[in-house]
């Protein structure tokens, strides 16, 4: 593969190196080259948010990120989260089938880390980039409230 470029980036705190082609999406590199299959593909065009990862601390749709662009960056996937930190989301019914869940929890944990956002935005606005077809969103919104208050979230 002569058209590949070697890149090095930080994945969930560890430095990784891999040769990627210009056409490869970060989503595919994570899933099919590195076996980080927690990140899901829902639509492949940046609408559903199932493939959300943090790129240098900001949630992005990994289906829209060319892999070579993460050279030197910090990528965090759902595998890098601590399960215990997600307890409020589990208890509030934020997850049903689980296909949107990896993306939902990446956005939810990001909101938890940036509570100042709630001065200008509602949780519903901040979560609008993560489509869920099962829950109707109430469980997700209550789960985020639980993360923010640290009390478990279930009403």
């Amino acid at each position, binding site marked *: 593969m002569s058209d590949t470029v070697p890149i090095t980036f930080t994945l969930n705190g560890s430095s990784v190196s891999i040769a990627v082609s210009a056409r490869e999406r970060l989503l595919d590199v994570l899933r099919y080259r590195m076996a980080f299959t927690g990140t899901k593909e829902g639509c492949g065009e940046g*609408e559903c948010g199932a493939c959300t990862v943090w790129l240098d601390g900001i949630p992005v749709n990994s289906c829209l990120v060319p892999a070579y662009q993460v050279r030197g960056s910090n990528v965090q996937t759902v595998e890098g989260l601590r399960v215990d930190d997600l307890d409020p989301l589990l208890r509030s*019914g934020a997850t049903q*089938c689980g*296909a949107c869940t990896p993306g939902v929890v990446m956005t939810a944990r990001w909101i938890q880390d940036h509570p100042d956002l709630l001065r200008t935005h509602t949780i*519903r606005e901040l979560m609008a980039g993560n489509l869920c077809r099962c829950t*109707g*969103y109430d469980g997700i919104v209550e789960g985020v409230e639980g993360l923010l208050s640290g009390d478990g979230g279930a009403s």
Partner: protein
Amino acid sequence: EIVIDPEPPLLDYRMLPSSQQIQYGDDNVFKHLRIEKGDVERALRDAPIVVEGVYETGAQEHVYLENQGMIAFTDDDVVVIKGSMQCPYYVLKAVTHALARDAEQVRIVQTPTGGGFGGKEEYPSTVALHAALLALKAGRPVKIVYDRGEDMAATTKRHPSWVRHRTGLDSAGRLLAQHIEVVIDGGAYVTLSPVVLSRAVIHAAGPYFCEHVRIDGRAVFSNAVPFGAFRGFGAPQTQFANERHMDVIARTLDVDPVTLRRINLIRDGQTTSTGQVIADGTDRVALMEQALELARYEEKQGHHRGFNAVHPTLRRGMGFATFYHGAGFTGSGEVMLRSVVYVAGRADGRVEVLSANIEMGQGTLTIFTQLAAERLGYDPDDIVIAEADTARVPNSGPTVASRTSMIVGRLVEQACDDLRDKLGLEQSVRGPAVRKAIIAWCKAHEGETPRGSAQYQKPREVTWDEESYRGDAYGTFAWATYVAEVEVDLRTYGARVLDFVAVQEIGKVLNETLARGQVQGGVVQGIGWAIMEECRWHAGAMTNHQLTNYIIPTSDDVPPIRVHFLENPYRHGAQGAKGLGELPIDGPAPAIVNAIAAATGADPRVIPVTPERLMTLSDARPVSTASTGGVNHE
């Protein structure tokens, strides 16, 4: 040389086909069903008032977040298929038939499935077969995963429907006659359309009593994409028509919509359109009144009158729907399925539940664990749910039709009791004593496990005649009233749901979090169907087969869904539960469109009520900025 001589496709199922376009019989109607009660023609002739209306619903795409996908490989002589599906035994039947193999030479394994909503009831058989054929030809494992574009373009969708009501009434609004014609677009393949049509016609007259009813249902061929199972399975279409029609009647007669329902809601001892006697003790009028109370229906109507009188651009309104949903397979369906469940003891004393019913987010694993643990007095951690692998689990039927908790869950309980019998225990024995008996049994029977089983038995009092479509269409119905508060912006004609109250009687709530999640998820899917989700077509193909322009609700498009349950245990359901999964999608569309009608004075009869559609219907216009000083503040 190939010569192509194109024939004109039949793309509008409502049109009469030309002779060239006939694919079945002499009219393309491949399923006709009739429900007949009393003498509808005489009753319509004699009725002082007759109100007519035509209502239509559009196709809807499931948009499960996980697309269709299958893996196939061979293991010695056995074709193994693993993937996303609701019905492992349906896939088994399709694959064994297509490959001309015995059931022992094919093994189907369901993997935890990323949403289904009916979209993984029949279509996965196609993907499975494609993967199997390729794996056999290649001699290598084959994985097929659809991308979103292919999934939306190729897989089944909710049937579009056309429903005409002719309703005879007295001047107070009492129903004297209901003549209902239902047509669904069958698409280019039969799929499950005949069964969808069956549920559609049975629910078409709504939860009301009327002495004279005729319902004619037709599924017609067209050259459209295939339509198939989708949560609600025909009932949302016909109940949209019926509940919209009730509000049209109310407006025509100048009767309050609440009064109209109060007069006509079915009372215990009265019969449905199929002659099924309802006598479950549920007070359906009180249920409706509780929903209206929780939604502050009257009070908000007062507020809205004031608001709408002065606001230059926004219009608010309240709307509601009263409805029902029969759980489990229709008519003789459950009898023909003859579902079987096993509950087996393991050498370590744990208990395993074996069924073909699958987890797709709705909670099968939790509910079966809960039911077995409570029945046997076990810690939930000591209950194991077997993987839905056709080589191991019995055929307990498909995971559809809101049947898993109510019907299969009851079999889980009975199989637990049978396990106790097999162990020689009294039925009162629970917990550690059961565990001890299992361990002892396993020691005494080297290499075997004690196994209880249960098979579905029709409740004696349930009778159904498939020929005449008379009798008990379902073992039981769940009852509901949903209330919507809607705001329409006359600058954009966009409608927004401000508040939503869902009250339902579902027998028994087995798990509050899961039950609430089913209702909230179903309501939001219904909000999408009502005002947002529109399949667009060109030459028979879906053109907006991507999430960029097929719009489903986000968290910011919907309000909190306020859910309230009433309980009235159903004696043949697990712990008294009735089916729940589908009920919540029957009510939102009519409730919301009734609210849009109340808000704007428009009379929408076709969903989705997109802004474009509402603009063409609505006489309401924003007050010009010139006449209000050019500024409006909310």
